[in-house]
């Protein structure tokens, strides 16, 4: 659980909000020749960022307004909150040190984990060392 600062109501508990997914996805200009792939890209495909991520939130139990949040998805730190139609503020954030060597994109992706050789000669993924 974390506290989200609603641009109108101020800091409130996360349970009052609902997340609306990735922000700043604009509907493509109406074209008759749009392919299914292009529509699928707009309708379904979303980035799954680890680190800085812009998402929409709705203060569902309070003022019922939508707004944007810049959140670090790996630490849940909320870096900025801004209203609909506003430009995202320029913020930067880091990723936490991951001693188990997680991949930079996503988490739990075993295929991308760094392979290390243990002292006894057996090969292991780093997170089990």
């Amino acid at each position: 659980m974390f506290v989200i600062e609603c641009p109108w109501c101020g800091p409130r508990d996360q349970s009052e909000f609902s997340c609306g997914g990735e922000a700043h996805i604009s509907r493509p200009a109406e074209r008759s020749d749009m392919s299914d792939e292009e529509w699928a890209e707009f309708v379904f495909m979303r980035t799954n960022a680890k680190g800085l991520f812009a998402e929409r939130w709705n203060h569902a139990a309070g003022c019922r307004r939508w707004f944007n949040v810049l959140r670090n998805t790996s630490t849940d730190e909320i870096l900025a909150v801004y209203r609909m139609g506003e430009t995202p503020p320029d913020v930067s954030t880091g990723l936490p040190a991951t001693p188990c060597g997680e991949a930079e994109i996503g988490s739990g992706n075993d295929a991308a984990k760094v392979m290390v050789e243990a002292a006894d000669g057996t090969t292991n993924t780093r997170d089990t060392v």
Partner: protein
Amino acid sequence: MPDRRISALAHRTPLQAGDGALSLAERPQVAMRGLRVDAKAANRALKKTKGLALPETPNTSRHTEGVHILWLGPDEWLFLGEVDAVHALRDRLGDGLAQIHHQLLDVRDQNAVIALSGKRAREALMKLTTLDLHPGVFRPGDVAGSLFGRATATLHLLETYDPERDPEFLLIVRRSYADYLWCVLARAGREFGLPDQTPKAGEIMRP
């Protein structure tokens, strides 16, 4: 014609703690109007209408001519009060806003109003919500939408409340949530002396 409407909580009887520290009751007679309008345009148009400014500060309210004007959102307000007072204000408001795009609706049947009062009312509400209800933070006239138990409701501490006396909180809740909210409030109030509810026919109250 007599008013045949049945309030959302007509089947519940008001509860009061023996020492008067807490009481729970429905306010079925409260009239409500919801207003959606652009705040800046509305307040410009209402300048000529004396005493009818809409509160623009989030989570506050204004009390004018017996009606409480509650801020619900940056373009949304709720008018709450006695039927005659709300009707009188509605007519003046309609005249004032005639030239701008707005929506003014009777939301009385959509909502139920539950009053929780007494010196332990804050403590009973604190058991159900994550809102900061400290007397220095949630003050008379304040409004806040939040979750109470699992129900979405708007909490209002009457501006007319005298700090020397015990606070009276109003909870404005969707009609279909009213019975659930009533039951969680009754349950939360038991440790402050609220008596057990009389179950409806066929209803099993958890101990």
